């Protein structure tokens, strides 16, 4: 197989993970105009819940428990932190999510310790040879679930009343209220959905790596760049952004000459993010660009 295509296939785990997380970030931004910097911790915490549940029950029940925990966590963060900070504006809300990030990491470290733990395996332990490297079935599964989640969310936003309500209440809460949409409820629903998505991503990613309160929470960082590249409130854009970020992190280090430069992936990502934002001018998200035209 051509080495270039092999390398593309080998980025699947990275693309899958970043897509899962970027979708959650987009969902929250679209539902409440808040950049949720606690998203990584909201993925990590339910993954630990799944770990504890799997000690007592089957893996799939543990996964279900984790998803419920993710939804509750999303609701809790929205109700306790984000909603209370709404009068202070989105900057205060974003800073509030940083506090949640620290708090969740601290609680997880306290409850489960900082020694890496072996997370429950959702997919069988199968390994595939791709080129000269290997891919776990869990990584392929993460990629497949991410694509399925992306398709589901695109459909949700495009074809359902809930999707329409979410967009309306985020863009203009007052107008949405006048047509009978409760912005508080739609925002809470957005956070609950994002919590489920984060939990799913966290459990699947932990299954292919391991459970650690800090590193798992920080795995989400490149997904912020993916979401930003995609326009922050655009599901399709988030998927494309995740593919780009996955490729940069996966393929750039294998390039001759520049590949061995320390920090080259981050430099490329940062540069592209700056260029994309520059091209967008004053507007930040894709909808801002569209609305400004």
């Amino acid at each position: 197989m051509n080495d270039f295509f092999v390398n593309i296939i080998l980025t699947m785990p990275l693309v899958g993970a970043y897509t899962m997380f970027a979708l959650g970030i987009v969902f929250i931004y679209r539902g409440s105009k808040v950049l949720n910097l606690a998203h990584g911790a909201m993925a990590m915490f339910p993954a630990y819940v799944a770990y504890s549940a799997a000690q007592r029950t089957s893996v799939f029940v543990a996964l279900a428990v984790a998803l419920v925990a993710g939804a509750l966590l999303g609701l809790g963060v929205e109700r306790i932190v984000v909603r209370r900070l709404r009068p202070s504006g989105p900057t205060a809300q974003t800073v509030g999510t940083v506090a949640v990030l620290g708090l969740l990491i601290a609680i997880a470290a306290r409850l489960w310790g900082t020694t890496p733990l072996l997370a429950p395996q959702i997919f069988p332990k199968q390994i595939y040879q791709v080129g000269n490297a290997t891919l776990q079935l869990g990584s392929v599964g993460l990629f497949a679930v991410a694509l399925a989640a992306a398709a589901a969310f695109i459909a949700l936003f495009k074809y359902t009343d809930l999707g329409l309500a979410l967009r309306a209440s985020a863009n203009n809460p007052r107008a949405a209220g006048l047509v009978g949409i409760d912005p508080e409820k739609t925002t809470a629903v957005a956070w609950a959905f994002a919590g489920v998505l984060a939990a799913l991503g966290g459990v699947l990613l932990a299954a292919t790596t391991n459970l650690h309160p800090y590193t798992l929470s920080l795995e989400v960082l490149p997904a912020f760049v993916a979401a930003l590249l995609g326009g922050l409130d655009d599901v399709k854009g988030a998927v494309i952004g995740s593919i780009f970020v996955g490729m940069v992190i996966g393929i750039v280090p294998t390039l001759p000459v520049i590949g061995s430069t320390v920090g080259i992936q981050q430099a490329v990502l940062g540069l592209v993010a700056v260029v994309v934002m520059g091209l967008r001018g004053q507007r930040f998200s894709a909808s801002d660009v569209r609305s400004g035209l």
Partner: protein
Amino acid sequence: MSRTPSSGSGAWAAAGIVIAISLLSAFTARLPTVEPVVNASAPVADPGAAPAGGEAPVAAPAGSDGPVPVPAGSAPVTTVGGKVYDCAKGHNAGATDVGVTAKEIRFAATVVKTGIAKDFLADAQFGMEAVRQKVNRQGGVCGRTIQITYQDDGWEPARGQRIIEGWIQSKKFFGLAVNPSSEGVRGAIDSHVIRDAKFPVIGSDGQLIDQYQDPWVWPVATSTASVMHIMARHAWQQGARRFGIVWDQNYRFGVEGHKAFLGSIKRLGGTVTSDVGVQGGQQSYSNQVNDFIGSCGGTSFARCDFVAMLLEPATATRWVGDGGLGNGNQRPRVGIGAPQPLFVDAFARDCGKYCDGMLVWTSFKPPLDPFDKEPAVATYLADLRRVNSKADANNPHVQGAYIGMQLLVEALTRLGPAPTRLGIKAVLDTMTFETGLAPPMRFSKGRPQFPNVKAQAFASLAQTGSFQGWRYANSGFIDDVDAGKDAA
């Protein structure tokens, strides 16, 4: 649809945060953590260890709790201002320097309980405590107990430097004991904090070259650079001519070891056919593995006679899981090698059949056949088990921490009743140190100094895919004939 000014400014602020985060994510594995003080002078807790006064879980050999050997040439009697102080009579000179009182002498150390290096450095504290607690049970050194304040720096140079600067400014500590966090002490050494304050660092792990250059640091272990020299030459002597290396470019041990390995291969006349630097802590290395194994001629390793894995355990586990050592059925013709950080039982268990036959290197005699019956080695194991029944006794960083503390105790013992920083420097700079756990070390005034430039190899053994233990490779202690070359 209109955009409100508040959401616009908020969004721009958030965008700034995102870009900053994306750039900083290169260093995620080294982010500071939330655990401040790990332990302040208290015995290290071990759920498996015997309670105070109880029986140790592993029986100590006869004499294991015997007196700490007082070396020849020690100075137990000192005269200060016409007064005679005699350690044998329990008379010391009291508060003779910073961190010293009549009853105790206080040290500090940054340790690694969080972050990417904890897999091979976290247990080092137990090695230190094994000596400290033993010495204190015997009444300390010249009537002074040894106290150590530990703090986690996550193996992060800037954080380590800040902590050490704080300790120096507090004027509560005599110096650093061992300081298992090589990256933490690196920050303080490279910024000249140590030498400017004349703050002794005694018995460090020697992982990085800068420890051999600072006049106030006395390392006990062989540097990563020296181990990579030895490993390359050993592989060459076994017939390797084409080499592959994967190394961690985020941390200094990887950078120095890589440079040393390449330098050795060049001097020997070999070829490096596959050379891949990775960033530790990444969630997938599949693409780099594809590149690395491809350059080595595929999973048959047709173009790599020998592969060096210069990674810390977590990254190495990920690397191997992504196929970085092939399929486990075929290996490089001469073999696979790794320096001290991968001489860790937990990593070998994770690696299983992929690491079967891999040679790992240490500058000490671990409690493994044929060394486990030697008195000094048996005593080391018993002392360590008394503090923690589960600590990895084979790990060179744990054993190095034990030996580093022995060096500290011996230097203090020789110094006698009136320890001072200048005094301990004078003692250490002319000291020959022999423990039975490592080749004799000769320290000197000049810098750089290389008290220990030897290493020997052990092979990881796997059967039916599972790690079975380590086997001595009968290499003997091999000298680094290129010590000091290829300094990063």
